[in-house]
């Protein structure tokens, strides 16, 4: 899932300066799960903005709403009237949702309330971590199901590097060296020989370095 994090309040404040009728629009899927953009956070952020404006002696009118997914045009239509009535939409969706809104409502200013941080999972209540970089060419079959591209600080394909100390990455003792984990896991699976093969240079063209990616399935298109 996509994990997001709400932008610093000061940044949001600056962004919305001068707008007096706001639609704070949440997204109830990925970023709700990471407690950044669901209805719960919409209410909290709206309340903070109102208080802030009140202290500054400025008027503000905020409509609070959330929709199931901001990344599908069909869902965006349900807020058509709300969008029309506001000066600006503060979207608490990931970057995809914000852009979908901007595309659907070309005349409206759509502002991002979140930073779209990574693709990852909930480790435990309140803790999320990155797992996938969306490189377009999955190699998890060869690395024991642990991704060095997303989880090695250098993105090394033939690790570990000399910075791996006691199973930790040199950037911080809190960060596991994923190559250590890969070796441990392959050892446990009795597949250590997989590492004897050197990874050739990876094709990064499919990872976005070759331009915006697009998938077309002829059998499904209209």
């Amino acid at each position, binding site marked *: 899932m996509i994990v997001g994090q709400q932008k610093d309040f000061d940044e949001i404040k600056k962004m919305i300066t001068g707008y007096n009728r706001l639609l704070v629009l949440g997204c109830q899927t990925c970023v709700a799960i990471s407690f950044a953009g669901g209805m*719960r956070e919409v209410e909290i952020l709206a309340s903070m903005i109102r208080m802030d404006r009140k202290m500054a002696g400025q008027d503000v009118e905020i409509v609070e709403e959330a929709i199931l997914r901001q990344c599908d045009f069909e869902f965006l239509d349900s807020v058509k009237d709300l969008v029309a009535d506001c000066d600006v939409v503060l979207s608490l969706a990931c970057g995809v949702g914000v852009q979908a809104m901007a595309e659907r409502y070309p005349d409206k200013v759509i502002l991002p309330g979140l930073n779209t941080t990574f693709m990852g999972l909930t480790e435990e209540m309140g803790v999320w971590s990155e797992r996938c970089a969306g490189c377009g060419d999955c190699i998890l079959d060869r690395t024991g199901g642990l991704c060095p591209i997303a989880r090695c600080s250098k993105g090394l394909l033939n690790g570990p590097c000399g910075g791996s100390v006691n199973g930790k990455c040199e950037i911080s003792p809190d960060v596991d060296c994923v190559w250590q984990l890969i070796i441990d896991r392959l050892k446990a699976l009795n597949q250590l020989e997989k590492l004897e093969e050197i990874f050739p240079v990876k094709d990064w063209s499919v990872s976005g370095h070759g331009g915006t990616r697009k998938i077309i399935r002829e059998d499904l298109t209209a």
Partner: protein
Amino acid sequence: MFSKVGSILVVGGGIAGIQACLDLADSGYFVYLVEKSAFIGGKIAQLDKTYPVNDCPFCIRYNEHMECASHTNIEILTLSEVRDIKGSSGNFEVTIAQHPGYVDIEKCTVCGLCAERCPEEVNDEFNEGLGKRKAIYLEYPKAVPNGYVIDRKNCLHFTKEGCNICLEVCNEKAIDFDKNEKDITLNVGSVILATGFDSVVPSYCEYIKFPNVITGMEFERIMSLNGPCGGHLIRPSDRKEPKNIAWLQCIGSRDIKHNYCSTVCCMYAVKQAILAKKHNKILNTSIFFMDMRVCGKDYERYYNRAKDEDDVRFVRSRVHNVFPVDGTDDLLIRYADERGKISEEIYDMVVLSLGLEPSQDAVKLARGLGISLDKNNFVETSSFAPVNTSVPGVYACGAFNAPKDISESITEASAAACASSLNMAASGAALHDPLEETGQKPVPAGLVVGGGVTGMVSCLCLADQGYRAYLIEKTDKLGGHALKLRKTFKGEDVSSYVKELINKVENHHLIDVCLNSEVKNTDGYAGNFSTRVAISSSTETKNIKHGVTIMSTGADFLRTSEYLYGKNPNVLSWFQLDKMLSEEPNTIKNANAWVFILCVGSREPERPYCSKICCSSALRNALELKKLNPDMEIYVLYRDMRTYGLIEDLYTDARDKGIVFIRYKLDGKPEVDEDQDGRLKVRILDNLLGEHIIIQPDFITLQTAIVPGNHESLAKLFKLPLDQDGFFREAHKKFKPVEFSAKGIYLAGLVHCPKPIDETISQAQAAAVKAVTVLSKEYIATSNEVASIDLKLCVACLTCARICSYDAIVINGMGKPYVEPAKCRGCGICVVECPTKAIILEHFKNDPILRSVDEAFLEPFTEYVQ
């Protein structure tokens, strides 16, 4: 008035009576609660706080009082007295006289206008006469039943004729002076006596007339927030704050006329001293006592805290007199310390820890029924049937059986409810209609873990009421540690009782005994549990469906290496001596001297609790040795002689028979040596002489501590909490001794804390009746206060499932969360955490918290606007 088949009469509306009523009513019986006074609740409402938790007892029990008043299976008859009980078990005819209160409770709105205008002021019994009330009164603001009553004795309408003020001011026209006493006849199957206690004021205690000598209960009222002093600690004579207070223990206990220990006074004096210190930090508090008898769960810790942290002074001395100090309201205490040195001290205030005796009305009633009472008028009971009186169908619980504290009274009340419902089941009584509920039926079976006496008693209670019981025992035989015991403190034969019990359990068609078995995992909720049990002899596991679980895995004894135990064969544990006394008394008969050492491993820094049964077991065995050989010199080395309650008899007897008692302190433990031939030598400081003495005994018996069993894995499996000593932690130390905070799981016996067999059995019965309250329901009780999830908004983020303390939310086959209503407790924590705001509490729709937040500011704060 109507009567019902299947009804039970409970006499006494104190804490025990209320508990018995609720347990029976929840099991489906109809109960009449007869209370002499105008309000239920008894003495606990008068208490400021309870030990060892320092909670306000009334605040915590208020819900139970309300429940008792509103339960459809309970009829409360206040201002009522039992005149006569005829008939026999299964069919008693009870005559009750109900006095009028002259106020219609249905109409009374408790506005208080009547009492405000009432011209007649009298002493307030609720405040022990320290305050005043009117002749029309409510005992205290939240008294149940919640309505005013007129006290005929003092009402001017009756005493001087003609006063009608209250009648005139009452807007609701609730007052009717023409009401008369009425006689009520009831037919009931069983009777429970829960009549409580009266305080003993012994004749020698003339100094009680000095204004600043007060009783323990008066002290409670003085400290109480709703008491006559508004919670300010002041002394009665001049309403000044006292600077030093003395507590005198054993007033009316442990004397010639009342040769028993009142059990509760040590703890309440310690509590009062601790709380008094909270009122006034620089207050000096001294407790004059003989033995500090603090044997319940966590009591020793409380006592240690008083000594070490709160700086309460403990003086080991029995004070015989209190003198007034001329020209002041102060009091002089003259006392002799252990060595006989006389000292004098002056106190601002003296609190008497008065003993407990059975209430006089109850004694009269019991005599009329032909119930055997002991020499002190307590009900004679057997250790193996602790709530059964000598009359079939009549049960007794609480302080009428022996002096006891709140938690034990509550336990016994539940035990009496259990025993009387067994009696009702045996006589084929029909249950009252169950309350209207809907849903799933509970599985009519109980799982009992641990096959000792506790487990077996619980199983029989369930099975005799028609429920299947699965008894899981990890060893290859039933009986547990009781198999090692010989006799109870009353001298009853334990082994034959245990044999009979095993026989009954093994032959009961509703009891499945699983020996060599262990619980592997368990899941579910009250009414519907599923547990997998592994049997060590086979590789297969057994899956058991049950509605309730009772934990009765017992405890263990300490394997000590102190005092040459395990090195010298003549140093015995208490159960080795038990065995020798029954199997080979001749080998020990000719011993010249014998030493008993108490508190081996108990009451030490690493085990700061009392094992409770050691004093009585040592004394009983010592007396038995003395019987075998009257010339044998017997020495009991002890720290405090804790022969609480009726066990005091043993102590008196032992001293009469010439057994020598030598007290030692933790820092002056006895030293045990042996010479080359293995002859034992004990060296100990005699506190009376102030010198070391040497004893050369043939044998030494060690009263080793009871230690918790290895419960950690079991606790984890059943998600149950352990306390700091490793025993299971019950839901509330005082008021819920056999329950866990999780519903449908109960505990009994030594898993809870060390205790003798009679208390173990009453806990086993209490746990069983709690279990029956779940099993007897037509449908599994769910509250309407449960979370409900709007699946349209839910994105299955799992937050609720992760955060729920009760595992009440699970993800179903559709990938969506599902709230198990029987597990949900309605706390609302998931509601505020849900990121999509998909959860509501059924009774809490539209976020009433938010609504109250909004409404809180609707009313303008006019008082601040100038």
